[in-house]
Structures are given as C-alpha cells and as structure tokens.
C-alpha cells in the first residue's frame, strides 16, 4: 500500500519532528511491505485553492495533491492554531476533490502548546476527514511542547503511543482493503 505521512504546518518544526517519528515508526515496523512517503508542507510552495480540478494545478501543488490521491493510508500531522488546524492544512483539503479520501485510511497526530485544545482534532479535523469520506482511526496522538527537547521527542511515552497509532492505522487499513477486495470480487465484473 502507499503510505503518506504529511506534516501540515508551514511554520515551526515540532509537527514535522513528530510526523518524522511516525514515518520512522512505520519504516521500522512495515518498511519492507509498503511504499512510504513523507511530505513537510513547510518545504512546499503551495497555491491557494481556487476550485479547479487538482490535475490543473502545477508545481508543488500538483505534486502534493497527486501524492495524496495516490495514497491508501494518510497520517496528518497538525499543530493547533487559534483553536483549529492551520490554514496550510485546510488549504490542502480545499485543493482536493470532495471525495478525495474515499477508501483511504486516515490518522491524526497533533502538536499543541496546552492540553486545553485536546478536542480540537476531534471537533475540527475529524469532520473534514469524514466529509471527504476517509476511514478515520478513532484515537490520535496528542503531543505537548513539553514532550520535545530541541529536535527530538524527549518524552518516551510519546514514541510508545506513536507505535500504537501506526499499528491501529495499519490494522484498520488492511482489514478494510481486504474486505473491500472480497466485496468487489463478488460484484462479478
């Protein structure tokens, strides 16, 4: 399967660090079986969505949207800005077709400055993923500023939770794909 880990922030570095550890955790555990990619939106020049079909964009915008469309599993890393997801990540969703995440399994990890925002991914990000038809892993990993030290995740518990998130995501994706395959075979065409 095509697995894409995406850091959805265009500022700071904690979301990218956390997303990179998800990427490493997948590589360690499932690297041989799947095609795993990492995108940091901070390194991309993204256009604002103007409603066109994603195929009609060019440059980084086309490349990133195409990688999302090609993925079977998506991990979205997001910081919390103003009690919601950052504009860079929302713009990415706006660039995609309405049903872009259909048949894809999506998972969330969040970096935040305080526990006060714990329900933001639940109430702000999950409705978008659901609207776009993703199969969303129910739990997510929520990481605080205090869990980081320079450019690493210092709190070892977070690594443990990330490993579980990766495992949960792959279980959901593999189960869904297999049953979908069986159903489609039964259609008889």
């Amino acid at each position, binding site marked *: 399967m095509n697995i894409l880990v995406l850091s959805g922030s265009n500022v700071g570095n904690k979301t990218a660090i956390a997303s990179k550890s998800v990427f490493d955790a997948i590589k360690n555990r499932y690297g041989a079986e799947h095609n795993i990619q990492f995108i940091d939106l901070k390194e991309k020049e993204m256009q604002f969505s103007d409603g066109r079909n994603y*195929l*009609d964009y060019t440059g980084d915008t086309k490349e990133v949207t195409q990688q999302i469309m090609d993925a079977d599993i998506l991990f979205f890393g997001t910081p919390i800005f103003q009690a919601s997801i950052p504009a860079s990540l929302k713009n990415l969703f706006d660039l995609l*077709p309405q049903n872009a995440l259909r048949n894809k399994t999506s998972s969330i990890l969040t970096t935040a400055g305080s526990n006060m925002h714990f329900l933001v991914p639940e109430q702000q990000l999950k409705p978008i993923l659901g609207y776009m038809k993703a199969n969303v892993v129910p739990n997510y990993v929520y990481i605080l500023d205090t869990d980081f030290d320079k450019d690493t995740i210092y709190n070892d518990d977070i690594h443990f939770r990330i490993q579980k998130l990766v495992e949960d995501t792959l279980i959901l994706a593999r189960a869904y794909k297999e049953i979908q395959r069986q159903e489609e075979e039964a259609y008889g*065409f």
Partner: protein
Amino acid sequence: MEQSRILPEIDQSKGMEFGLYTLGDHLPNPHTGKRISAQQRIKEIIETAVLAEEAGLDTFQIGESHQDSFISQAHMIILSAIAQATDSIKLSSGATIISTSDPVRVFEDAATIDLISNGRIKIVAGRASRIGLFDLLGYDLNDYEGLFEEKFDLLLKINENEIVNWSGEYRPSLKNAHIIPRPDHPKGGLPIWRAVGGSYASAQKAGRIGVPMYQAHLGGPASEFKKPIDLYKETASAAGYQQNDLRIATAGFFFTDENKMDAFRAYYPHVNEGMKRTNGQGFPKQAFAHGQDYRSVINVGDPELIIEKILYQHELFGHHRYIAQLDFGGVPMEDIKRNIHIIGEKILPAIKKYTKK
C-alpha cells in the same frame, strides 16, 4: 406571463426522445491498452452519428473540450461534417463552452450548421468542468462565473434578435450589429439549452430565464437528481413561464448487452480508467455495481433493466429527452455498433411506447 424562449421541437405524442452524446474523449481502450489515432476517432464519431440515425435515434450531440486526451476542440466542425453525412437526426453541441467563446461566433457557426442540416442543430451551452482552456484561450479563471452568465445572456439575445445592441464587461460592445446568417426557424433563432452539472444554483438560473435545461449525471440515486429539476420547474413557474414551455434533458453513462453482467464487465474499465485520466479519480466499483438497481441513475445492463430504469427516471424527472454516453474511455467501434443496434431494436421502441402522450 413571460414570453417563451425558442424551444426545441419535441413531439411528445411520439414519446420521449433518445439520443447519444460524446465528449470526444480520446483514450486508450483499457481492455487492450491501445489508442486509435485522432483521425480515426473523429471519423468513428461521424460514423456513430450515421448509425444512430439509421437505428432511429432522435439526437446526436458532441461536447467541446480543450484538454489532453480529447479531440473535440473544434466540436462545431465535427457537427458540420455530421450534418452533411446525415439527413434526419437532430444535432446538438453539448456542451459548447460559452464562457471562453465569442457568442457571435458560436451563433454564426451554429446557424450555418442549421442551414446545412435543414434546421437540425441546437446549442447546449456550459461553463467547463476543467479549466485549462482559460489559459489556452486567454481568459482569467477569476471571471469563471461572470464570463458564463454574461456570454450566455448575450448568446440568447443574439438568438432572439437579428439586430443586436449590447454592451458588457467581457466583450466589445455591439452597436446595431447585424448577426447573420439566421437559422431556418420561424423565430429566426435556435433552441439553446443551459447545461447544468448538478448545481442547484445553475438549475435555478435556467428556470429564472425559462431556457431548456440539460442535466448531466455521473452516478448515485436517480431521486437525488430530481431535486434540481424540481427547483428548475418551480423557479420557472415563479418567473412566469408555463410548465408546458419547459424542456428537460438528462444525460449520463449508458451501456447495454443482452447479458447484463457482460455490460458491466465491458464498460466498467472504460469508465474507471477514463475518469482517472480525465478527472483524476476513478469511478468507485461499488457505485457502478449499484447500477444493477433500478434506482441508480447509471443506465448500464441488459435491455430490460435499462428500459425499467429509463422509465423510472422519466417518472421522476418528467424529462423530454434522454441522452446516452456509451463511448467514454476508449470503447471500440464494434461495441458502439452493438449498443446502437440493441437501442434501436429493443430499448427505443419500449421507451417510445410507454412515454408517448
């Protein structure tokens, strides 16, 4: 009461009209991986129209597209060739992208085809689902809505007046402009339909000005597509148009075979691969499989299932014309021929019999 627009002549005593349309896509046949030449594709489209006429179908329609994997950039020229190759089948553009065209030129071209074809051409005007042609032809995508509304209005004005005085934002003014040739029609104009792609606002606008509405469907329950049609009818009524003066056409995927599952097996890869290339997303197999239910709007299956579906859709929509897209995604000519044969032999007679008024 508002005066009615120039209406397409549809004789309801003979039942609902049945037509074919092609977007002029030029894609490989997914069963073989091979793609015919652009020249062969254009010639096969002309041949398809001739076969449709021979089988007794009512209309043949070609859409305009300027993106890769299409050959229908000059769709009016292909329609002109079809006008010369046929005698009685009604012809239509569908859709002509009016936003990025000059309405004067569109009218001149269509009126000329009207004279060549002895009054058989109609225009379906739309606004493009892909937007590459805005760059290609020098238009600003920010004007997407404005361009369409203004140019569609101008096209209607030219159609209903031989001498035109007009000024707008996106085209130089017309001062006592004499727009000729005039079509061979009592009112001197052509039936012009508004293409609606499932947007409620667009259906409402068609109703507000009382133009015929052409609605294209991809997939899903037929009942969902009734809602914009109802809104069109209600809006037209409120604007003072008579229900009798409204015309509705629907269009969507169609494929038939004597064996139901053979139809699904043959057409699914064309639709799925074709959508991936032209739209960036395949067609979900589940949604296609649901096409076996009479409530799904995709008209794929054996002739009996298709007849049941079209009649059910007619009950819902009250449409005057159904237009089948059976050549999408590299369908080979032999399959197109077999489809037309089955339509003419089985489907058309049944549809006509049960829908005539």
